[in-house]
C-alpha cells in the first residue's frame, strides 16, 4: 500500500536526530506516561523481587537487599509503540545478568510479572548479555510511580511496553506465554527497528 502515494500538501517537520530513530517514530522531549489502568502503589516494606519457574532455588530480594546489589548507570534511547521516542534517557538499576548469576536453567523464555497484574513475555536471551536491567532510578531521581516506580524492567532495544512498569519478578519458562499487550493485538517480540508493532508485523 502507498506505492507512489503522498499526502497532498504535507511537508512534515524533520529533525536532525531523525536518523537515530526507528521507522515510524518521532522525537519527544517530555516523558509521556502510558498505562492501561491506575498506578499501583506498593509500599517499599512490602516490595520484593523474585525469580521463579525453571530454577532450582527460587530467588527473592527485599527492597533493602535489592538496593545492596551492584548497580549500573545506563544511558539508552527508548521507543514507545505509540510512536514517540526519547533519546539518551539515563537510568540506574541492576543488570539481569547480576540477578541470574550462578543460575542454571533450561528456560528459553521469561514472563515479567508486575503489580497491577500486568505481564509481558520475552526470550531469555533478550534479557541477558548486558541488554536489560531492573531500574529504580531515572535521571538521577527515584523512579516515579507513574513511570513504573519503585522499579521497572528496562529492555531498551524492544518497544517500551516490554519494559514493564511496577515489575515484581521474572518467571523463567521453557515455552513462550504471550503477556498482556501481546494477547491484545501487539507484537509478540516488538523490535522497533523492524517496526514490529502489531500481530503479523
Amino acid at each position, binding site marked *: 500500500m502507498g506505492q507512489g502515494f503522498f499526502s497532498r500538501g504535507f511537508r512534515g517537520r524533520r529533525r536532525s536526530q531523525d536518523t537515530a530513530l526507528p521507522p515510524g517514530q518521532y522525537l519527544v522531549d517530555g516523558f509521556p506516561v502510558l498505562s492501561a489502568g491506575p498506578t499501583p502503589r506498593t509500599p517499599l516494606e512490602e516490595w520484593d523481587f523474585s525469580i521463579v519457574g525453571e530454577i532450582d532455588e527460587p530467588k527473592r530480594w527485599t527492597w533493602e537487599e535489592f538496593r545492596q546489589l551492584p548497580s549500573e548507570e545506563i544511558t539508552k534511547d527508548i521507543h514507545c509503540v505509540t510512536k514517540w521516542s526519547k533519546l539518551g534517557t539515563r537510568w540506574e538499576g541492576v543488570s539481569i545478568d547480576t540477578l541470574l548469576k550462578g543460575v542454571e536453567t533450561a528456560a528459553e523464555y521469561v514472563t515479567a510479572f508486575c503489580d497491577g497484574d500486568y505481564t509481558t513475555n520475552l526470550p531469555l536471551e533478550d534479557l541477558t548479555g548486558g541488554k536489560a536491567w531492573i531500574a529504580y532510578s531515572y535521571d538521577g531521581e527515584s523512579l516515579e510511580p507513574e513511570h513504573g516506580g519503585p522499579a521497572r524492567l528496562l529492555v531498551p532495544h524492544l518497544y517500551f511496553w516490554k519494559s514493564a512498569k511496577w515489575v515484581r519478578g521474572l518467571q523463567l519458562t521453557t515455552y513462550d506465554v504471550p503477556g498482556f499487550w501481546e494477547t491484545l493485538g501487539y507484537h509478540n517480540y516488538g523490535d522497533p527497528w523492524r517496526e514490529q508493532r502489531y*500481530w503479523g508485523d
Partner: protein
Amino acid sequence: MAAQLRRTLWRLAEVIEVVPETPRTRSLLLEVPEWEGHKAGQHVDVRLTAEDGYQTQRSYSIASAPEDERLVLTVDHLDDGEVSPYLTDVLMAGDKLELRGPIGGYFTWEAADGGPLFLVGGGSGIAPLMAMIRHRAAADSDVPTRLLYSSRSYEEIIFREELETLASRDSALEVIHTLTRSTPEGWAGYDRRIDAEMLREVARSPDESPLAFVCDPTSFVEGVADALVRLGHVPARVKTERFGPTGG
C-alpha cells in the same frame, strides 16, 4: 489464533467530509476500503507521506460507532503538532488518507459487556468515549451510563449537541460537563478541573461495580484513575487511555 495474527494492513481511505466540531476540532468522515469493523474504544494509526518520501505516523481514537456508515476520526489542532494541523487545516473532502487498524483490545466496550458505565474524558479524549456512547445508542443498550466531560469552554465542548440530544431521549444516559477556563453567563455546572471532590460527587458508587473508562491527552488520566481507586473502585475495572501530550 492464526486468523487473528494476520497483518494489520495499511489502507488508503477517502475523506468524504470534514466536519467542524469546535473552533479547534474537526471530524474526518472516512470511507475505508475493506474495513473489517472495530470495537468502540479502538484506534487507528495514520501515516502521512511527503512528496520526497518522508513519513510520519500518529495514533487517533475512532469516534464513530461500529454501526456507523463512516469511520470517524475527531482531531484536535495542536499548535506545535506535526500531524494534527495537517488533518484539521489542510485535509479536505476527496483527499486520501493512509491508515491501518483497528488497534487495541483493552480500552474497548461492547454493549454485551454491560455496566454500569462511568466515562471520564477531557478535550479530544472524548473520541473513544463517544464511540462507546454512539455504540450504546445504536445497539439500543440501556446500560446506565454517566459521562463526566471536561472542556476548556462552552464553545469547545466537542459533540455538545449530539450528547444533549442523546441524553434528552434516554434517561439512562447522563452527561455532566465541567468547564475549566471560561463559563457562559448563567452557567450552573462545574467550572474547574476534574478533582477528587468532583469524582466523589459524580462517580457511580463502587458498590455498583461500575466499569470506568478514562481518556484525556494529559496527565489528568493518572489523577482521575488514582482518585477512583481511593474512592474504592476496583483497579481492574478502571481502564485508561492516553495520547502523548506531544502527540502532534
